[in-house]
Structures are given as structure tokens and as C-alpha cells.
């Protein structure tokens, strides 16, 4: 997409080919019912709010609704509303006029205008600031686009909005963090995708699909699962839901040598099945590699961690593990951590806001008593001087 900033490009994405299918995968009652609801939603033109944990496939639902709707001849554009500063999100959605801000060298059309007669999928809508919520509400009421830096509306557009969140919006409304009027505007058709652990009968279908898809993609024979291996995968908790399963299957396909996957080929966290599963499943190898790229390879946190996290290839537990590991080295100082993770010193506030927004800001105090720690002033921690969200 031309004209977007590098940061914004990470938020606007085309569907991953692996995710494109005609219907939801799985045969559980919940999925069959969702399939039916998708058909009703597609034949209507009402706004849709999709809720469910991270990784359950909310965007897939949005794409299916769009594909089966009478807007399918037009575009579906997707944007992740989390992690973007207001100014960038506003410019992405509504566009801007030349000279609106430093670096705005030419007029830019926003996604809502680009999606005219089509659909926009707004993921993580619960993370929007109250200011952005007000702008979105005004758009939903009037359909008018006012580009950043312009003093009047440029266009009226016809866009179907499908929003998604993994937040409990009614709790956010009670906490006055989400506008109730916006909630009722967005929540005309309400679809909830249950977590994978509540529908283990869908796991075999998902495994079959991704095994076949990744085998084709990597040009290898489709591996088979032994009954014991399958049983363990069905019993596994899948805290990261379908996204975790999908990533897991790709690794399995790449590692498979014999074509038959036995229980011993599975990662340690899947063995043995009788042991209660840990609440957190941090992928140590991934965390190690990312940590090394930043600390030794001097690559930036924004490239190494932020981007995969926003694309959901990294879980919160992974992010927390990376931050904890960094705090061990920086002895509890978030300011030192910023430098350690290859960021500019000025990125400190943005970094902390990002961590706080995603509930990944680890208390620094417990790292401060590490032996050999040098004294630091209060400005060196993420305590008193941390920016307010």
C-alpha cells in the first residue's frame, strides 16, 4: 500500500493464504452455529462485533462475512487499532491533507475512504483511546470522512464496519474506558468465538488442514500423526488458540523426517498428558533468538519483537519472558533496557506505554536486588517516572 508509513504497514494486511478457506474449520456445535451466524450476518449489512481470545481467528470470521456478503466485489481492508499512536491511527483511518503534520508531503486517502462500498475490519477496537472512539462514533453516525488537517469533511462513504476485540467491553464501559454509545453502534451483530480448549473436537480438523497446507507450501509429503500423538494434541490446552496450533504445525512439518509423528516428536510441554498443563507456554527458542538479535545483533525491539507481536506471531507470555530476561540484564532499569533492546533513548515512553497497554509491564523491583547491581537514581526505573497511559 503506497503512501503508508512503515509503522502503519504492519497494521494493514492481506489475509494469510493458509487462513483462507470457505468455511470455519471444525465440526463442534459451537463452530457449526457460528457458521450459520456468519451466513445470516453476511446477508445483512449490519455492523458486527466479534469477540474472543487472542488467536481464535476473529479476522477469519470477518473475511468470511465479507466474502459471502454483497460487498464481496469490493475490498475488505483490515487495521489493528492497538499499539498505534492516535495521530497515526487517525491518519490511517481518515487520511490526511498535505502539510497536516511534519512529513505529510502529499494528501493521503484513508482506509475508510479506500474501503468505500466494501468492508473494514477493525481489530483490537477495545484498545482505542476515548478520542479515537469519539472520531469513530462520529463517522458511524454520519459516514463522513474528514482528513487530518482539513477543516471540513471530504467525502461520505459507505463502509461496513466489522470490529473485533479480546477485551470485555462491558467492563471497559463500566471503567469509563469505552464509550457505551459506540459499543451499541458497533455491537449490532455479536459473534463470539470460543477458545480452542473449549472445543477440543475441532483440533483434529485444524491439524489436518494445517498439516496439509504447510506440507504443500514447503514441498514435503504431508506427515501423519500417530493416534497417541493426536490424543496428546487434542488434550493440550492451546492457550494461544488456533494461531498457536498453526505455528506449531508449521514447525512440526519442517522438522518431520519420517512422515509419521510420534509422541516423542512433540515438544516437552505436550508431554506427558497426565501432568497439569502450565498456564504459560513460553517458547524458549523463540525468546532466546529474539533476545540475541537485540542484545548481541543490535537489532531494534520494534522490528524484532513489536512487529511479530502485533501480527500475533508472538504471545504475551513470550513478550513478558523477553522483558523479564532484559530486566535481569538491566537490573530492573527500563531505561537501560531501551538501549539494550536497540531502541533510541526517546523511545522510552512509547516502549512503556506499549508494554502497559498489553499488560506486559513487569514490576522492576524484584530485579533490583540482583547481586552486583549498580545504584541507580529513581529516574532509571519504570517506577515514579513512567509515563501515564
Amino acid at each position: 500500500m503506497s503512501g503508508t508509513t512503515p509503522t502503519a504497514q504492519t497494521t494493514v494486511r492481506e489475509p494469510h493464504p493458509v487462513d483462507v478457506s470457505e468455511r470455519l474449520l471444525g465440526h463442534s456445535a459451537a463452530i457449526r452455529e457460528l457458521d450459520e451466524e456468519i451466513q445470516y450476518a453476511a446477508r445483512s449489512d449490519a455492523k458486527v462485533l466479534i469477540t474472543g481470545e487472542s488467536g481464535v481467528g476473529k479476522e477469519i470470521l470477518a473475511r468470511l462475512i465479507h466474502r459471502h456478503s454483497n460487498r464481496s466485489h469490493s475490498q475488505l481492508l483490515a487495521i489493528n487499532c492497538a499499539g498505534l499512536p492516535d495521530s497515526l491511527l487517525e491518519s490511517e483511518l481518515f487520511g490526511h491533507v498535505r502539510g497536516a503534520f511534519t512529513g505529510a508531503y502529499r494528501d493521503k486517502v484513508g482506509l475508510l475512504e479506500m474501503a468505500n462500498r466494501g468492508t473494514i475490519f477493525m481489530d483490537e477496537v477495545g484498545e482505542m483511546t476515548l478520542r479515537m472512539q469519539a472520531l469513530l462514533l462520529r463517522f458511524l453516525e454520519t459516514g463522513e470522512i474528514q482528513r487530518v488537517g482539513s477543516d471540513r469533511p471530504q467525502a461520505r462513504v459507505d463502509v461496513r464496519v466489522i470490529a473485533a476485540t479480546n477485551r470485555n467491553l462491558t467492563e471497559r464501559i463500566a471503567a469509563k474506558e469505552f464509550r457505551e454509545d459506540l459499543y451499541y453502534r458497533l455491537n449490532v451483530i455479536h459473534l463470539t468465538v470460543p477458545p480452542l480448549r473449549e472445543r477440543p473436537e475441532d483440533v483434529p480438523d485444524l491439524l489436518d488442514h494445517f498439516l496439509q497446507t504447510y506440507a504443500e507450501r514447503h514441498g514435503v509429503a504431508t506427515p501423519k500423526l500417530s493416534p497417541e500423538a493426536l490424543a496428546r494434541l487434542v488434550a493440550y490446552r492451546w492457550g494461544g488458540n488456533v494461531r498457536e496450533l498453526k505455528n506449531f504445525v508449521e514447525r512440526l512439518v519442517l522438522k518431520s523426517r519420517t512422515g509419521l509423528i510420534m509422541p516423542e516428536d512433540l515438544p516437552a510441554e505436550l508431554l506427558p498428558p497426565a501432568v497439569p498443563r502450565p498456564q504459560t507456554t513460553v517458547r524458549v527458542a523463540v525468546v532466546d533468538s529474539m533476545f540475541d538479535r537485540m542484545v548481541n545483533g543490535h537489532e531494534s525491539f520494534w522490528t524484532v519483537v513489536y512487529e511479530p507481536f502485533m501480527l500475533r506471531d508472538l504471545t504475551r507470555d513470550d513478550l513478558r519472558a523477553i522483558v523479564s530476561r532484559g530486566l535481569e540484564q538491566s537490573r530492573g532499569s527500563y531505561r537501560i533496557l531501551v538501549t539494550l533492546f536497540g531502541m533510541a533513548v526517546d523511545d522510552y515512553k512509547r516502549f512503556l506505554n506499549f508494554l502497559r497497554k498489553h499488560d506486559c509491564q513487569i514490576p522492576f523491583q524484584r530485579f533490583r536486588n540482583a547481586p552486583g547491581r549498580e545504584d541507580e537514581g529513581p529516574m532509571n526505573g519504570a517506577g515514579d517516572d513512567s509515563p501515564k497511559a
Partner: protein
Amino acid sequence: MDQKHVLVVDDEPQVLEYLTSALNRSGYITTPCPKYEDAKAALAAGRPDLLLTDIRLGPFNGLQLAIFATQKYPGTPVIILTGYEDPTLRDEAARAGATFVMKPVRLEDLLAHVKNAIP
């Protein structure tokens, strides 16, 4: 004349009780439902002559129920009671073939809407 069957959906128990009693007194058979999911099951169990639903049903919108009812059981008349004016929702309701009735509504006016929908 056969008694007409009205499926009444509202997540506020007192309103649900008030509406069903009023309709019963006017000669209608009613099935009261406090929840969206119950209403879907009730629609499947015995097709009512009319669906009368509030717009707010917990996390669901009465319009979603209207969309479901009119697509799955075409020809089912739907009245949606709403406390707030919203042109986009009104358009959506019209597209689904549902009638919006603004609250507060006098009982005789509501009964007139019901009679109009299922003469």
C-alpha cells in the same frame, strides 16, 4: 379465530412479565424469553406468529435476533422495541423487515402495532 402466538424477548424480567401479561389479556398466546439464545431455541421449537423483542438483550442486539428470525423463518413479522433513535439501526431493521417501535410506548399503541403485524 385461532389465537396468535407471540414470542416476547426482553432481558428485564419485570418488562417481560408486563408485556406477556398485557398480550395474554388481549387474547394472545405468549412465550416469554429473557435471553437471545433462548429466543433462538424458542423460534426453532415452535414458529411464532410474531417476534416482539427489546433491542438490548445482554451482549446481543434485538436486531440480530430479527435478522436471524427473518432469514431462517422468512415471513415472520418482527417488532423491535428501542429506547433510542438511531437512523442506521432503523434502516437495518427495515432491511430485515422489522418494525421499530420507540419506547416509552403506550400499551394501546403497542397492541395496535401487534394487531397491525398479525391481523
